[in-house]
């Protein structure tokens, strides 16, 4: 997993609440048995005017000029700014895979759906919860300022705006540690094999029908 320490990145505003994982990566792309290559189909139904299917040459498709992802000023964005309940719906990890493959490293929103939030951390993607008023202020600033960038420092748990405003954010200590060091959860858990086996033996003695 990619480490996340400090990111100074261009911000893209996606001004919608309740963006679901079906919108982030539509179902037809879930037929892939790979973990990579979903970026060109992130937000497929909003991003292109024609219908997308796996295996198509996306460079030959018709982009939707009204969708924010296609606007030239946001090309190369690494930070996605959005509204409440981002990532709701399906548990598909293809959603963070698609966002990460597109080039995003952080998402800022007032709230996230639980499963999506969790999946982000497994893929080097930092989801940041900020109060709705602060998110609103950032939306105004991004739209008013071409080339608007934010500096995210995970160690400091801070976001610094170009005008010097600093927004602090919360992140669970364990998730922060794993993300900063690019740690593989499975490797960490397997350090406790003895405890798991011990638990398992007792659990099965207590509930032998399992």
């Amino acid at each position, binding site marked *: 997993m990619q480490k996340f320490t400090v990111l100074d990145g261009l911000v893209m505003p996606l*001004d*919608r*609440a*309740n963006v*679901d994982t*079906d*919108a982030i990566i*539509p*179902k*037809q792309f*879930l*037929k*892939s*048995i*790979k*973990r990579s290559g979903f970026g060109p189909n992130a937000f497929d*139904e909003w991003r292109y005017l024609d*219908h997308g299917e*796996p*295996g198509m040459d996306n460079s030959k498709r018709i982009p939707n000029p009204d969708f924010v992802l296609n606007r030239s000023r946001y090309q190369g964005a690494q930070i996605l700014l959005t*509204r*409440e*309940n981002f990532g*709701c*719906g*399906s*548990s*598909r*990890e293809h959603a*963070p895979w698609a966002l990460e493959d597109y080039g995003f490293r952080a998402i800022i929103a007032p*709230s*996230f*759906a*639980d*499963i999506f939030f*969790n*999946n982000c951390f*497994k*893929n080097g993607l930092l989801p940041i919860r900020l109060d709705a008023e602060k998110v609103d202020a950032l939306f105004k600033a991004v739209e008013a300022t071409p080339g608007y960038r934010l500096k995210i420092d995970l160690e400091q748990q801070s976001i610094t705006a170009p005008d010097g405003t600093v927004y602090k954010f919360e992140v*669970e*200590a*364990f998730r922060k540690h794993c993300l900063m060091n690019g740690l593989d*959860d*499975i490797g*960490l*858990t*397997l350090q*406790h094999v003895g*405890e*798991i086996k011990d*638990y*398992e033996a*007792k*659990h099965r003695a*207590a*509930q*032998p*029908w*399992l």
Partner: protein
Amino acid sequence: MCSLPHAKTYTLWHNRDLLKTETVQAKQLMSAQTLYDKLWNSHVVRQEADGTALIYIDRHLVHEVTSPQAFEGLKLAGRKLWRSASILAVADHNVPTKGRAQGIADPIARLQVETLDSNCAEYGVNEFKMNDVRQGIVHVIGPEQGATLPGMTVVCGDSHTSTHGAFAALAFGIGTSEVEHVMATQCLLMKKSKAMQVLVDGALGKGVTAKDIALAVIGKIGTAGGTGYAIEFADSAIRALSMEGRMTLCNMAIEAGARAGMIAADDTTIDYLKGRPFAPQGELWDKAVAYWRTLHSDDGAQFDATIKLDAAQIRPQVTWGTSPEMVVAVDGRVPDPATMIDPVKREGAERALHYMGLKANTPITEIKIDKVFIGSCTNARIEDMRAAAAVAKGKHVAPNVKLAMVVPGSGLVKQQAEQEGLDKIFVAAGFEWRDPGCSMCLAMNDDRLAPGERCAATSNRNFEGRQGQGGRTHLVSPEMAAAAAIAGHFVDVSKI
């Protein structure tokens, strides 16, 4: 708990002594516990200082869409499967619902299903293959087989895993990285959620179902209302539900934002499980039942939030927008965004009405439909089939309805329905009777809406494009879907 100088690992074995305890936690354990507390505490292997716990997983359900990358990850890292017997696998999302003897036409979908087959063969995992009568939607077959039992932790790479909480289990959806984590370690790293209690008291009116309770709850608290919570549904209206109804309700906990929904075990739970293939038998059954009877919230248990609904006030529900919280009673009207104060909500509603091709203030019963889908992990069990058939019996699908399809949740549901003659009722009424799978709930296979088509669906999500790009979904109960198929527009089943 921060008052302690250091956090110790603690582990509790149900019906046994507390082995190592942390004082504060021990105190909590001795006081009244919620069902969620009991399920959580009995699965903690170890706990970190910040509260992140290693939770043991009893049952792992696997399907073709979210597992190939997990199996691949195991292989690449040279890791073994911790406990193959904990896994039950089935292909459901990509399988065709007709012409199954010819196999899967789409080569990409076929490869995904074949990949599941080969992974299961290689790792010795129990899989119900496409043409096995026990095949079906993963959240239908788990309980049907007795593979979901009270007191278990149940996970699956699918958000509707909350369904299994109907059996007093702690069940929730996970991503593919966590699928791999469970395969390799039989555990998950997680923090405990807050506990919410949803109390539904009284008797449901005629034509009102568990689906309507689910939609009414989501309408009340919103699709993010349960975020960060595990929800326990309780009180008289919940106790009166069958296991099928309880599964429908817990299934949609995720649509309220809660990863897990659950209901205490009682006679209904135990009667449902008796004699199922994976359920314990004989002496073990008696032992298990004794334990299962402890799986309820204690009197005086504390919840972080409580929501109350009066069952008698719940009307049949119909969604009008592109989020399950955009829902009204069938005798209501499409709301007017202009009356909404919150700008984010108003813009969301305007966008939804535009997508749905609806005008504000239109009576719900004047909305005409093009297709009907009766199926999904929410509503494709035998009771759902019976309820829809009772409405369709002796009638015919309206001429403006291009397709009305019934997709049973499993081969065994299909078989049972056919023994009861339900298939004949549906076919005589002009419905198509299909083979089991997820089908048009998410339209990964060939069952999908064309752009602009409007569908009465018994599934769980009305997101943009969910049932096909440009498709328009209205979520309803099986009774309401069947009645809409017959009338060609929504009708109030309580008045039929």
